[in-house]
């Protein structure tokens, strides 16, 4: 027995699957993903909404999972870094991040990837200024953002090309 409140049953939609788990109702989405669903790809650097490392997509919009309660995310589609790739085929932002060297330690990377995925999945190719603005809520201490911006621009171009071919 502990001081934590009784667990409740959470019904979540994560990366296209319906999942259930018993968790304390005061847990953040970040904690439930990492600790109860074993999806440790989502990281944390502050748990106060300051760094962006915990960014996931909720209904395709970037959300700081450290500030969201899991219980509130129940009716929504959640996407994490584990759900970005299409089977063995990497998402264009993942492919570009790897190629460009946009992940150094790689710890901020899942957060950036989710922010970037939301951006590039919209039609059109964002300018560098738009990219800089979109990722301004994600902190990276390794890269100086240079290669992250390069990677997002590359992914956006590739997606646009693929869309025109299709």
């Amino acid at each position, binding site marked *: 027995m502990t001081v*934590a409140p009784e667990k409740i049953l959470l019904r979540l939609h994560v990366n296209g699957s319906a999942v259930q788990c018993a968790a304390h109702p005061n847990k953040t989405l970040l904690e439930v993903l990492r600790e109860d669903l*074993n999806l440790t790809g989502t990281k944390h*650097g502050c*748990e*106060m909404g*300051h760094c962006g490392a915990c960014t996931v997509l909720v209904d395709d919009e970037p959300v700081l999972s450290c500030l969201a309660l899991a219980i509130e995310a129940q009716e929504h589609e959640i996407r994490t870094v584990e759900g970005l790739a299409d089977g063995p085929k990497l998402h264009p932002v993942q492919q570009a991040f790897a190629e460009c060297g946009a992940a150094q*330690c*790689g*710890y901020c990377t899942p957060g950036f990837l989710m922010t970037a995925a939301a951006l590039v999945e919209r039609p059109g190719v964002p300018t560098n200024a738009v990219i800089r603005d979109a990722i301004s809520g994600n902190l990276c*201490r390794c890269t100086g953002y240079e290669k992250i911006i390069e990677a997002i621009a590359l992914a956006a171009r590739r997606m646009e090309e693929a869309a025109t071919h299709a």
Partner: protein
Amino acid sequence: MREQELPSVSTATNPDGDARPLTSAVEASSVLRRAPQYPPDKPEGFSVVGKAGPKLDSFTRVTGQDRFADDIFLPNMLFGKMLRSTQAHARILRIDTSKALALPGVVAIVTGADIPVRYGILPSSPDEMVMALDTVRYVGDPIACVVADDELTAEEALALVQVEYEPLPAVMSIDEALRTDLPQLHPNPRRTNNIHKEVHLEFGDVEAGFASADRIFEDEYFFEGTTHAPIEQHAVMAQYGADQKLTLWAATQTPHYLHRIAAAVLGMPASQIRVIAPPVGGGFGGKTEPFAHELAAAFLARKTGRPVKITLTRQEVFYAHRGRHPVRFKLKTGVKADGTITAIHLQSWLDGGAYGSYGVATTYYTGALTTVTYKVPAYKFDGCRVFTNKPPCGPKRGHGTTQPRFALENQLDKIADALGLDAAEYRKRIAVDPNSTTVNGLRVTSCGLRECIDAATERTRYKEKRGKLARGRGIGLAASSYLCGAGLPIYWNAMPQSGAIVKVDRGGGVTVLSGTSECGQGSTSMLAAIIAETLGVDPSDVSVCYGDTDLTPVDLGSYSSRVTFMAGNAARDAASKARHLIAQSAAERFGVGPDRVGFAGRRVFDLGNRERSMTFIEAAQLAEARWGTIACVGSYTPPKLAAEYKGSGVGPSPAYSYSAAVAEVAVDLETGEITVEKITLAHDVGRCINATNVEGQIEGGVYMGLGEALMEEWPFRAGEHKIPNLLDYKTPTSLDTPPIEAIIVETDDKEGPFGAKEAGQGPLNPVIPAIANAVADAIRARIHSTPITPEKVLKAMDAASGTTLRLKKVTTPSKPSPVPV
């Protein structure tokens, strides 16, 4: 191979220089260890080294597959939390844990009395304990550690621990630390103040140097303290098995030091402890020594028999700190009319925070590398580190050399202006020469400083712009140098600084075991590239096992920019021995001498007739049949470089990297706001092993320097860190960071692996003074302290123009008010 064509390759020679057949792998190793010589490097022939491309671990990083320390969960685990002091300086009268212990879900609580062992990363200052025994020395100093079934309960329990303090006067500044009427943080009967370390060194005839100077410049500078703020909060998982072995998974840059100190603190044989360094989510020097939470988790895992995880909150990361020391400088430089330096006297005062950490080394480093960038014929250095009631300072990227660089490069521009010299040409003229020795006995080998200055200034058209841009726009240059690993280990020993084992599988795969820690700097890919180049395979054929004290030979760790040079050389040593064995057996098959065997493109062939070849797999099997299992050891010990004086151990390095930065800024003359528009940085990396990675290191260094130049601060109020969070502690976002252009300069260092030097730290150093010099160019006034804030810009402009009022004069419309109708 990424490149399918067969490049020309180096040949395998018997390292002993004769063709004496070797009879076994073991014998081969011992023979080879005596005289490691390598095939001559042919830059045009490299098939892996020098190519750009993704790092080996990029793909697992972008999918979230890698497990960092906090991503490890074990069955039946406990969560640990540390109770930290609320007082800056106090005696602990009583700690009552009974209420906390009675809380359901709490499994154990320990305090300082349970582990009363002093330790310290430097053997010369063992002044820390896992938890305070009787005195707390900063807000955040650990007092107790609770483990519970879940995190919430552990947190709740902290609130129930009662601590009774007897407050002591807090020492919160360098000035206060030098006073004799305040209590000592660490009782020292030989002193009456809080000085931790004093250094006084003099080289050459300093008095004569100043006497012969035409001009003497004297300035004072202050470099503000900053912190690393890696995005990964420190974390550790400790497990004590039924076999009585302790395993620690720690977010550490230095698994070996944690291993050593855990053994000492826990009173366990090191053979019963295994330290594993999973991928580290950024270090920058902040994870280079054993931390209280790591040792407490280990202790509690042993005590409870259950796995214990402790992950620091972001606030605690600010308390764990070991960040950049705030330093005050007095800098006196004598020059001839043409700018030639005749003597330098540098005095530094370091605010060390509450404990020693690496501080003794930091103190030396504020003076040691002054002479490695420009020629200084006579040099005097006085350093002084003090204890204050703040989180302990330690090494941050550039360790102790970043702060004086700000002072030196700032003053150098001032000298150039006063003497009417072009600041770039001037720097080139006084730059140290390759293959020279400094006045304090440091051996300089390869040096691309002049090339770096040329590259950065030409790219930015610096000479056309400096002093000629409109007011409010500026361009600034600065240069620097850095170590490729400290020449001496931090604890005295005669063993190698790095070891490696290379094992060749009969399936063609190669595994390297290296004690390094991968903190994002790319050590894994560097090792794979060096081994792939040596054996003619693809980097993807190389599997790198790192940072595991049970499996990997010791490497002292990922700090001091030592990994490429030292671990790289060790890996190359081991791989060369494997190559030699494979070459011997292949040579027998080809019926030629082993010096005619080449390796490239996953093939082994007769250099005289490339048709005569076999796959690397066939060659590996042939070698295994001939010699037995192919597993070779390598190691690296730097040459003896230290001169004969006390303190000479800090500063020597087997090589120095060089950098030059040019910053271009716009300053709003009304608000003082600074916009850095671009930073161009040229870096002499010796030889670039992977351009993507070297550029990444340069860009990261530039970015980190930018934050220190413009925004990062370490403020305290009433004994407390004022801003221990990532919102108030400003680090540059993507909107604050300008485009960065990295220029790689190669000098082919004779002792570096394939000629390589470091890129992880050096590029940060010139960035801060380059920005300072650019701002000075824009506002025609100099700012002598970091960070360079809008407020300081306005004040400096006021001081330069002799005004004190910045606000515009209040006026009313000149036309009379219309008469109401």
